[in-house]
């Protein structure tokens, strides 16, 4: 189990991947930027477990906060509301400062 790559407060982008088969990354978050709230757990990779493998070593699971305007740029209102998603580390990459 390697130490988590992203500290709390890091601005990350969810990789816009579309792998075949089972995964736990909702489509609405792919390609979107959010802020790491923290690592909430380490868990076996569900993408491997779905096919009978053990998914080890466990992956860091992050809570990532996405502002509503980032997820739904065409919607109006609800400016302060946000969505927090549990995401596995391989799906995340550091976002450049100031990018959306």
């Amino acid at each position, binding site marked *: 189990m390697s130490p988590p790559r992203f500290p709390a407060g890091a601005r990350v982008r969810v990789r816009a991947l579309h792998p075949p088969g089972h995964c*736990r*990354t*909702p489509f*609405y978050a792919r390609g979107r930027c959010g802020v790491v709230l923290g690592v*909430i*757990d380490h*868990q076996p990779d*569900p993408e491997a477990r779905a096919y009978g493998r053990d998914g080890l070593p466990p992956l860091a*699971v992050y809570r990532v*906060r996405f502002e509503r305007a980032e*997820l*739904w740029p065409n*919607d109006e*209102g*609800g400016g*302060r*509301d*946000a*969505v*927090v*998603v*549990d*995401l*596995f580390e391989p799906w995340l990459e550091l976002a450049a400062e100031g990018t959306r």
Partner: protein
Amino acid sequence: MRGHHDHAHPHRPDLEDLPRTYAMLLTDAVASLLLAKGIVTPDELRATLETIDSRSPADGAKVVARAWVDRDFRARLLADVNAAAAELGIDAGGIPIRALENRPGLHNVVVCTLCSCYPRLLLGPPPDWYKSRAYRSRVVREPRAVLAEFGLVLPEETEILVHDSTAELRYLVLPGRPPGTEGWGEAELAAIVTRDCLIGTAVPRLPTAQRNGPGVAPGAA
């Protein structure tokens, strides 16, 4: 319910007459295989179903009521719901459950957009709407509109955090204790913590008789 019996009800079909969906057939097939191959015994299967069916939102309400009256317990609950529930003799299962604390100006609501993950071993089976595509797709996009349909209208300045439980973690909302409940016992407090309060689509309110005028979401101002 006024007028409920003013109309004729359609005959309610027997369970066996309803269409068998793909998911129902798949569930039956997998269960048959698990039994046929001896991976689980019929007794184990029944015992597990009975355990899940025996759980109800009352267990979650009990945990919340304790957190309202015991500051140290509240801290332990916010760190680890499973361990805190065990202190009250509640076995919340092996999947980690985390508490989301409502505070003045912050309201939490839980969804699983991918399927219907829910802390079943603490709260019992989820309501049907929690599993519906409408709730799952809409609450992340327009939480205010969805909560309003549940009768929960929050002030503009209250931030709504929608938690999508996409990993092997479950979430329990720790609602705010409403004013007017000072001096109440734990059982009395637990009685106003409904299932929806634990999901975040409602907030605890005093029974109408004990309320002066229309209720306002506690901690929401």
